[in-house]
């Protein structure tokens, strides 16, 4: 058998979702080989970076808990800084996973298949990183982590349901839970495959436990597909809701630059934008490292590039509309915050970089040549990831640092501890991601088999 994928050149490389020459066995073989093979050497190097960053994270956390939020750059008036920027950034990144898993599933977009597992894991880990921030940014996290929850208590106190921060608790926890279920649900058949393929007794037990008694019977498949669809249905509104609710943190407040009705859709688009950038950022190196070109084909990358272009344009439209609404409102505080302080104030370079990253750089994606080049896609995704962080900086910091009374205006800058926390979560994310890649099939094997020519007949027959 010639190595699968070698004949792809003859076909339309932009159309295929799985390289020709694969059958059910080779798909399983190829994907599970990552799990069963030896750990590649380069992975230790990546691990070392991730581990070092996690140590920085832990150091920062210790310092934070013993000394207080004063180790960061936050002040009055900029009482929210890196922590909230990072929260929004991570939650945004998590969006692509849900979108790919849920919405594209419902829309029957077959190209989602090879990247959905990966994106879902990314979502989960991004949410894990994100939740650290709102809890730990508080002055007294040891109380914050449960006083925001509604539970009957001796104080006779409920949280203040008017506060968007309480809505956040529900939005993020729901999102996290559903994402976890969805991801795990999708993994069950593949865990069963691994269980059946492993020669190692303890691994068999582990995978057997995780497979939850999956035997692949028709009834299993029937229940499974129904549950998966239902979860997809459940997750779909979450794609919209979670970032809408996050955006309420800002739009419900009356700070000029925050108080805008455009925020929910603008945040959701931004989140999808950031999420796809992150999927590309991770998928392109992983695809190369594990030689997964057969499964993550050029079409996948191109499609993601297109989604980035579209959502990036939506976000850019949001930027434009902010100016328009500021002008149209006739509110001098809004006009100052949006039209004056952002582009010409002391943080103008941040704003200009944002426009470069999130608007100008993605214009390259109109070109097919660019979309076909993994390297260029990766670079653009990197720029967009930075841009989306800058966008949150613009919203959080530049709005707060100059609000109503000029006497209170002040500047803000993150300290090394702010950076340690941010980079630490990136390390944490990397570690989780590589643990996932190493120990869990990163591409849904059973779903890939649906893409095989032979399963299409069956699939169609089943569908009718």
């Amino acid at each position, binding site marked *: 058998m010639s190595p699968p994928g070698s004949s792809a050149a003859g076909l339309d490389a932009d159309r295929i979702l799985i390289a020709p020459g694969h059958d059910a066995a080779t798909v399983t073989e190829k994907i599970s080989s990552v799990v069963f093979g030896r750990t590649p050497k380069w992975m230790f190097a990546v691990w070392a970076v991730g581990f070092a960053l996690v140590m920085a994270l832990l150091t920062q956390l210790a310092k934070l808990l013993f000394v207080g939020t004063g180790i960061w750059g936050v002040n*009055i*008036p900029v009482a929210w800084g890196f922590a909230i920027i990072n929260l929004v950034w991570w939650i945004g990144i998590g969006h692509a996973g849900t979108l790919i898993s849920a919405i594209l599933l419902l829309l029957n977009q077959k190209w989602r298949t090879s990247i959905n597992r990966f994106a879902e894991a990314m979502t989960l880990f991004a949410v894990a990183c994100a939740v650290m921030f709102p809890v730990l940014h508080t002055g007294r996290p040891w109380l914050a982590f449960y006083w925001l929850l509604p539970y009957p208590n001796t104080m006779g106190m409920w*949280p203040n349901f008017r*506060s968007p921060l309480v809505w956040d608790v529900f939005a993020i926890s729901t999102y996290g839970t559903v994402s976890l279920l969805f991801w795990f649900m999708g993994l069950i058949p593949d865990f069963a495959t691994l269980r059946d393929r492993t020669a190692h007794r303890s691994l068999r037990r582990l995978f057997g436990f995780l497979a939850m008694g999956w035997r692949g019977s028709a009834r299993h498949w029937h*229940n499974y597909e129904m549950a998966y669809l239902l979860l997809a249905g459940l997750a779909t509104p979450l794609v919209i809701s979670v970032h809408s609710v996050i955006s309420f943190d800002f739009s419900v407040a009356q700070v000029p630059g925050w108080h805008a009705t455009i925020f929910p859709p603008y945040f959701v688009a931004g989140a999808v934008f950031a999420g796809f950038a992150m999927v590309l950022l991770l998928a392109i190196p992983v695809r190369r490292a594990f030689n997964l070109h057969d499964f993550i084909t050029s079409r996948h990358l191109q499609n993601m590039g297109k989604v980035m272009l579209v959502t990036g344009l939506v976000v850019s439209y949001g930027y434009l509309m902010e100016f328009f609404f500021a002008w149209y409102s006739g509110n001098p*505080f809004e006009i100052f915050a949006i039209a004056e302080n952002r582009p010409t104030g002391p943080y103008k370079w941040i704003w200009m970089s944002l426009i470069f990253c999130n608007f100008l750089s993605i214009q390259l994606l109109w070109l097919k040549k660019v979309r076909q080049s993994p390297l260029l896609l990766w670079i653009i995704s990197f720029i967009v990831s930075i841009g989306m962080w800058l966008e949150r900086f613009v919203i959080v910091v530049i709005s707060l640092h100059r609000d109503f009374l000029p006497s209170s205006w002040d500047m803000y800058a993150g300290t090394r501890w702010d950076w340690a926390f941010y980079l630490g979560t990136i390390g944490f994310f990397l570690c989780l991601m590589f643990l996932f890649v190493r120990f869990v099939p990163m591409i849904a094997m059973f779903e890939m088999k649906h893409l095989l020519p032979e399963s299409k007949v069956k699939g169609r027959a089943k569908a009718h």
Partner: protein
Amino acid sequence: MKESESLNEIRARLQGSRGASYWRSLDELAGTNAFRELLHREFPRHASEWDGSLDRRRFVQLASASLALAGLAGCTRQPIEKIVPYVRQPEQLVPGKPLYFATVHAVGGYATGLLAESHNGRPTKLEGNPEHPASLGRSDVRAQAAVLDLYDPDRSQAVTHLGQIRTWGAFVDAIGPKVTALKALEGEGLRLLTGTVTSPTVAALVAELRAAMPKARWHQHEAAGRDHVRRGALAAFGKPVETRYDLSRADVVVALDSDFLTQGPGAVRYALDFARRRKVHDLAAARRDGMSRLYAVESGVTATGTVADHRLAVKPTEVAHFALALAARLGVAGSAAPPFFADGERAEWVDAVAEDLQAHRGRCLVLAGDEVDAEVHTLLHAVNAALGNAGTTVIYTEPVEAEPVDQAASLAELVADARAGAVDTLVILGANPVYDAPADVDLAAALAEVPLSVHLGSHVDETAGHCHWHLPEAHQLETWTDARAFDGTTSIGQPLIEPLYGGKTAAEVLAVFLGRTLNAHELLREHWQTAWQTTGADFETRWRKVLHDGLVADSAAAPAQASVDAGAAGAAAAAIAGWTSGELELAFRPDPHLFDGRFANNGWLQECPRPITKLTWENALLMSPATARGLGLGDLTADGDQYLPTPVVELTVDGRGLEIPVWVVPGHADGALTLHLGYGRDFAGRVAAGAGVNACAVRAAAAPWRVAQGVAVRALGRRYRLASTQDHHSMEGRHIVLGDRFDNYLEHPEAYKPHLHVDPSLTLMPEDEFVYDGNNWGMSVDLTACTGCNACVVACQAENNVPVVGKDQVAKGREMHWIRIDRYYQGVDADRVEAVLHQPVLCMHCEQAPCEVVCPVAATVHSADGLNDMIYNRCVGTRYCSNNCPYKVRRFNFLLYQDWETPSLQLGRNPDVTVRSRGVMEKCTYCVQRISRARIAAKMEDREIRDGEVVTACQQACPSDALVFGDMNDPGSAVARAKASPLDYSLLEELGTRPHTTFLARIRNPNPKLEPPRQRPDHGAHA
């Protein structure tokens, strides 16, 4: 739940059946509940709702288990503390109820009468004494901070000899033979060095000492003394005369480089009298009584200058020239207008001022600051005499000081004698000349020549290090003192606590040199028994009354017969005419908070932003933006530049130099520099250490305040970060400080208000969510009266246990003051400042409070009496409330700012106010503890809380009555009347927050000749 049959069992049953029974079995099977249940479980899509119920026992089990687990987390072992009741309850002492005692606070010798609040024997807060003429119940920033001086952990705590700890007894024993020897020599070689002394007891003891040892000499030295005032009066009247002013009778005031509203012995009283002539919020009263007018001519920007109706910024020498021009215009003999004021715009200015003064003969006042040259003082005595002000607005009395001397000469003489070996024993009582003497008066070298030197001081300071003996000085709140106020009224300061570190008073040290061993209390009683010529019960009665009242009745200084010597005035005029103003002039000024540096170790004063510069913790070389450009330092006022560190320069004065950062002050006179004293202390004070630069390094005895020639500034190319609490100085055209001219106001009272479209229905929240049946607290802030003096800021800090955070944290924007005074410059640009505006901003206690909505844990909520309460225990510190507060009055404990460790600081805290910990938000509470105290008192007496019964700390301290607090539900209350004024406006009204704190617009009373009335109302906002 019932066990259902497994698939295998079903299969077995089916296999076991045959034929017809097979089918029947299947039917039967399908009909059983068990099978239906199985189906339900396998195909949940078809499942009906789970009807499984938890029985009561199981629920209680689970619930109690989870509660027990939750409870475990709350089980921390509390430290054992014992609370023991009094066996014998001391008279008057009710735990939890404060007592008040009259006492004094003297700065530079002059006293302000105060009432000290004492909790269980610990003074925690000082208020003005309503009976005392220098206070009338008000106080200033230094008096408010004095309680922290008492508890300063860096205070000197032991008697030392050559650095070794000794006892007071050892000192007395060691001095004994010396005293005998000195007596034999009639005191030859014995020198005393004190600050300005007004204390009758100390004066009497010195007199006694001099009687016993006639050759002993008494020297006086104050770094920020009043030599010029003394010399000016001496020249004008030929004898020492004390000058004080009656601002309540002055319709027109001209102030020459004078910050009489915030600095100097009578400032608190002057500020009150002045403000009362400018209370215009009652339109009918304003029409009837009018408004006084203030002209200020000054080089730097002072608090007084900022409230002036007209302000002229000129170099220090030109201020003297202005005095000359004014005197010439008013026809004071021997005066001729100097060229600078001879023609043009400035001559018009002089003309207008002179006309205004002449139109108010006997009801006007021309005064100069303590730092202005003696010749100007002399000339102004003649001017006031010419205007008929003597005896009406200017009051001449016998000196208040025990012995008015020229202190500069006195100190120079001491140093010269010491270096000549003529000083055998030097006793320094409370002064710190090694730190604050001019650079050309080398005290350290002189002290090295003295065989025996004794220093009494509150700290082991610079001078202590050069003396043989150091004695800890008792704080005014822990010992018996007496002192006189600016008008001569004598007060007896009673202690509120035993000396914390066994400190002594100047009187006690003098007694040692008299060979007597009486304590401060006995010395004081002995003196007053002699002075009043009473003993026994009569004395006790009077003594008790004096202690209770805080002053000796009718002890004001007697009026002095004073007529100006025309020749002296002419000579002064001629001298001034001979002065030429330099390219770059330098003025020294006492720091608005630290004075001459004696308060440098007071964290409250250090951290309180200075009134104009808003700098904390450090001094800087102040200059105008144009001067900075001229010196090649660049444009330091451009947007964005205010965030950069400021340039450091080398300032050289006649060969002496120092390195100091520059701070630009719009409105400062061009070509002039101002440098504040009081910084650069060099002793082991944890607060003072490293704070600023000592201006005395370039100060010469001959030119203590004004240097016209030989000043040079060189940029060093370095930059340094100063900590300022306000970086942005323009109102950006926003409606923040509103105001109008007085004449406009009388005609169109509400014309100052911008036309805003405020729709109160534009809120998602219920409109009248809160109904106040009882009290509805509110505050009114009079922007016309506010001078920006900061008394309220420190009063609030003392009352509410507000922590000091340090320069580093202030620079990060984390100062904790609950009330701040915003300062805006108004004008075309930084070079043409028309006005400097002050706006105290505290929590607005909004009716539609943006903070309340967003707090996730409901830690900030409305109270039943209109307050926006902060519940520290509930706060988790999301800081969302601060973000959503448009006034940015909330303060967050980013770190553990409160000092939980230092025992002496724990004593000083107000026990009625929570000491906040790390991670919680805090803000102004309208002094809720004072409201509670009044409410409890009212309930005990079954009545309503009376208007004026609740006085917030800021309101109580305010020397100009700018703050009024009370019940808005009571239409007769002062606050309700203020809010009924057409001048009442809400800050950021357009946001619909409906604040309970509102402002009274700032009214100026310009001279129509200098500023013709405009058609358009004078919207103060446009900057």
